[in-house]
């Protein structure tokens, strides 16, 4: 992992070829749970991006110090610490987002995307490569969650980022705000995403 070409490849794979949501279908719990609006999706995506970045950095730094047999508990403690820090900081400085995301913030700990990257990438690669990997994967996650949230908000609530373009009483497709709508919207977005990226490559 040295040349900038490889670096770029490493970054882009998280967004397109190995997009955590649309291609690898990782971290479905927050993906389906919080994306009832574009803002929630974006907030959840950014919180996850931060945790992923920090855990990749720490795991990569201490990879040779962590004995193989206890690596999973070690990773989990590291990830859980960063999640708790995110939770406390959000509650203190962005209480609005903290309330919206609720139980899904502590649940970032069990997002398999984060443990997956720590285990399969950061524990085997250099610090820079791990940072680039985390940024790519994290951005892929942010983009996917925001897109899903936007689609659900537009169809289900007639608004985008709280900006309404239909009147308050208009009949919108409430189904898309409700949990089943998350599955439906995710399925169609995944189809479109894979169709477009397959054609492009």
């Amino acid at each position, binding site marked *: 992992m040295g040349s900038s070409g490889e670096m770029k490849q490493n970054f882009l794979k998280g967004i397109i070829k190995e997009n955590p949501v649309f291609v690898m279908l990782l971290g479905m719990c927050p993906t389906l749970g919080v994306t009832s609006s574009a803002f929630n999706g974006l907030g959840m995506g950014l919180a996850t991006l931060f945790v992923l970045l920090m855990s990749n950095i720490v795991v990569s730094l201490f990879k*040779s*110090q962590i004995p193989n047999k*206890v690596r999973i508990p070690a990773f989990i*403690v590291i990830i859980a610490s960063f999640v708790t820090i995110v939770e*406390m900081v959000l*509650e203190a400085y962005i*209480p609005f987002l903290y309330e919206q995301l609720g139980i899904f913030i502590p649940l970032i700990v069990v997002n398999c995307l984060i443990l997956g990257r720590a285990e399969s990438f950061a524990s085997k690669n250099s610090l820079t490569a791990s940072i680039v990997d985390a940024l790519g994967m994290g951005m892929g996650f942010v983009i996917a969650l925001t897109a899903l949230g936007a689609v659900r908000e537009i169809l289900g609530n007639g608004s985008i980022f709280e900006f309404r373009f239909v009147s308050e009483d208009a009949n919108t497709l*409430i189904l898309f705000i409700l949990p089943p709508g998350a599955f439906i919207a995710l399925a169609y977005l995944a189809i479109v995403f894979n169709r477009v990226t397959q054609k492009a490559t």
Partner: protein
Amino acid sequence: MKKKESTLINMVFVLFAITLAAGLSLGYVNDITLEPKAKARLAKKMKALNVVLPQFDNDPISDGYLLKMAEVKDSVEIYPAYKDSVFAGAAITGVSERGYSGLVKLMVGFQPDGQIINIAVLEQKETPGLGTKMKGEKFLRQFREKHPASFDLKVQKDGGEVDALAGATISTRAFSEATQQAYDAYIIYKEKNLISDN
């Protein structure tokens, strides 16, 4: 660097070091966010008070107190408002656990005679796009300047006068219940207050 062997002593030492570092950093972050967290909660309460109370010149939060009611699990919070030392109204919290997904907590502002000034939603976990419309102007408008003694705080389906949110009758019912509870608390508060005043 060579990877550490998985010997018992290595494993115990590494896990101990990691948990120690995690504990220390969490304690540190907790310390520095303690004050902003309390401030954020206070600001939220103050914002709700400003919405539901008439003009006041005292500090309702420091004048506030807790009222114990038989049928309410937690105490009811009461925040009286005074303007030029004259009682101008009070903000009272109302809680219902019968929302569509649990707790609904409101802050209801009352005129001295018991008329509702305004209602602010403090906490709710209702369905986005349906039950969350209880925070909307269109729904809240029907409660303003109504006196719970003459305005039946029940959903129309249950024989009351509250116009339910479309598709969210359960949320509306919880909202009505919480409002009624706040009013009941206000009546008790007023009786107590009058006795102490005279």
